[in-house]
């Protein structure tokens, strides 16, 4: 087996590129922004299927004639399937949806089936955004706490930096590609947090075990050894998880596509970060069996 790859020698390069990508991601999120769906922005979403394929510009023109403000029409999966998004207007017209449906049925010259209609009001959308941010923050805090209880603070800091790295870069890629952020993407991000943590914990467990086993060698070598020992597991689990995710991405339908894409990104980034972000931080803190023993003395009086 291809044991003993020198990961540590790559730490510097990896860290520099991680920092650059991280900063770029923040830059994109801050300036280009995230493409929030109606869950977080409010507005109306209509998925429709027409009997005979039509030009999406016909839908756009029909809706523009209604003076609805910002309207977004795109193809959605199969031929004849379209997704329409209408922005939130201040004057809340309770008849908006039936009016849109009627106008489309009258003007498209084909049978129209309204497969999905969603409308999220401004109050609800701002609440959903708020509770999503709370959920992600709480998840990060809970992970931090768990690692702090199970390991020492250096591990806690390392894993949380790795998590931030994963979440920010995943969102950064969503910003660059202008992919929609909705409730299921938030679910994906939280799952990524769990998965990335899971990966980091496995390596950390081994590093700690090896620190006590090989007290003479440096943290760099211990980290390298531990990463190599757990490498097979890291790869196999990533592969099986990715197999499941790619299957959802390709076959799971249009609604799950964004979710599975976010998860695929997250699994790849999360696997990378456990090796190249979480482990170097232990080196940075000069963790050794001595620092760990001190910690234990403190805990056990």
């Amino acid at each position, binding site marked *: 087996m291809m044991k003993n790859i020198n990961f540590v020698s790559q730490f510097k390069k990896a860290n520099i590129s991680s920092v650059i990508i991280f900063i770029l991601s923040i830059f994109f999120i801050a300036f280009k922004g995230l493409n929030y769906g109606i869950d977080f922005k409010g507005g109306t979403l209509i998925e429709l299927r027409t009997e005979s394929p039509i030009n999406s510009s016909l839908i756009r023109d029909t809706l523009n004639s209604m003076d609805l403000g910002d309207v977004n029409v795109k193809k959605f999966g199969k031929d004849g399937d379209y997704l329409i998004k209408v922005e939130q207007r201040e004057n809340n017209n309770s008849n908006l949806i039936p009016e849109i449906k009627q106008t489309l049925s009258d003007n498209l010259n084909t049978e129209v089936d309204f497969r999905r209609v969603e409308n999220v009001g401004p*109050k609800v959308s701002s609440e959903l955004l708020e509770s999503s941010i709370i959920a992600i923050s709480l998840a990060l805090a809970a992970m931090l706490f768990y690692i702090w209880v199970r390991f020492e603070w250096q591990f806690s800091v390392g894993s949380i930096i790795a998590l931030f790295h994963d979440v920010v870069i995943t969102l950064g890629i969503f910003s660059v590609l202008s992919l929609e952020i909705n409730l299921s993407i938030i679910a994906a991000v*939280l799952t990524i947090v769990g998965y990335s943590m899971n990966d980091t914990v*496995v390596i950390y467990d081994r590093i700690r075990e090896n620190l006590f086993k090989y007290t003479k060698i440096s943290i760099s070598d211990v980290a390298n050894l531990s990463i190599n020992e757990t490498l097979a597991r890291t790869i196999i689990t990533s592969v099986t998880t990715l197999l499941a995710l790619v299957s959802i991405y390709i076959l799971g339908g249009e609604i799950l596509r964004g*979710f599975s894409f976010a998860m695929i990104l997250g699994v790849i980034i999360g696997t990378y970060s456990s090796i190249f972000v979480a482990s170097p931080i232990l080196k940075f803190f000069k963790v050794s069996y001595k620092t760990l023993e001190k910690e234990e003395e403190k805990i056990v009086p």
Partner: protein
Amino acid sequence: MLNFSKINIFFIYLIFFLISIFSILNLQFHDNKILDKKVNLGLDLQGGSYLLLEINSDSLVEEKIQSKVIPLKKLLKDNNLEYRNFKINNNSLVFSLKDLDKFELLFYSKKENLVNPYIDNYRSFELDYKKLDENYIEVMFSKFGLLTINNSALRQSIEIVRRRIDDVGTKEPTILQRGEKRILVELPGLKDPERIKKLLGKTAQLNFRLVSDNSEFGVDKLISENGETLEISKRIVMSGENLIDAQPSIQNQKNEPTVSFTLDRLGAQKFGRATSDNVGKRLAIVLDGKIISAPNINEPITSGKGMISGNFSFQEATDLALLLRSGALPTPLEVVEERTVGPDLGEDSIKSGITSLAVGFVLVILFMFYKYKIFGLVANTALIANLLMLIGVLTILEATLTLPGIAGIILTVGMAVDANVLIYERIREELKTEKSIIHAFDAGYSKAKITVLDANITTLIAAVILFAFGSGPVKGFAITLGIGIITTLFTAYFLARHLTSIIVLRNNHKDLKI
């Protein structure tokens, strides 16, 4: 770790059997009287409408504060408290007062306080006052007073919403309180919620008021159904509260749809008196501030039965009758969130969900077999058992399966093998230094145990938080992911370990590869 006592084995398989047997219940199509449990399909899979309604108690607070004017003035007069410049605001009353100490004593009296009753369960008075400048004070509802108004309005609204929806006759509606101001309505199978939305969008406050130009109560200028402006007395002769039944009917002479109604005894009396005293005048029937019609009173109506006409179509008459039967909403309801999924999209989602589950499952199984051969088979058996148990638990809980929930199951399939991978990789390492196969397996299992737990608890934390904060479909994902982790731990550490032990103990002497 490889030794199992007989009783252990018995319990492991008993638990597995008892839980996974429930997954089979989902295959039955007929109602089973003994064990009628099934995984519910979420609205995104079976199609239907989800509505989130919000009450707005502002107008109610306004109404309630106005109703305090007369008792408050009476209290002041009876106790010789001089007040001046009494002003009614939207949600408060302002006036100037000299003897503030005496007022405070009366205002916050716990005994027979008709103006400001004490609410026992909140340990608070209904009203509060605060000093403005000089001698002016402002009386308004206390925090708990507002809460009481809000809560009773919400309770009442839920009741009325339930009656209206039951009356329309959709199948198995769910109507629940959500937070302090909201009502969640789920209507499975409903393709177009517009009619329901229309019915819930009306408060349906019905009043009978005389058309007159000289009323001591003041008048409202309203436009009647045929366009004339009428002055309607503010005095309410009778309101919809006195209705006990309303039905759509066809008036024979003109073949016109109307709504005929029946009044309770008090209503019949009131109505009888008003119609006797005002023969020849016109009586306006006002619904939510709009005149439906304003017919002439030809003769006294004392039977307690009447009829409302107003150029209705039959559908309109049916809906009006339904609204009147179900009673008036205390406050207007606003639809703040609405999601409707058509039945064919739901079916497509089920199909694609199950296809991707099957494909993902097969891929993972093939990969595991390729990597670990016979022990791959053990891991795969555990995976199948895992899936059965996961569906079994979902069935026992009668959980709601959503499309993201199916994604959660697929993800569980991908991640569940991790526990076995961790263990097997550890055993491989142990085999390098350990000569005894049994010892290597034993050490592998015990050393990997902590890691497996650590790794799964982190994902479980994410799932729990997602469940607490997520809504609707996302909650469905959190449920499957969370339960999946627990069944994973069980199958990896008990079932797969036992199967592994059988293989290892039987092939101890041979050169066993993993």
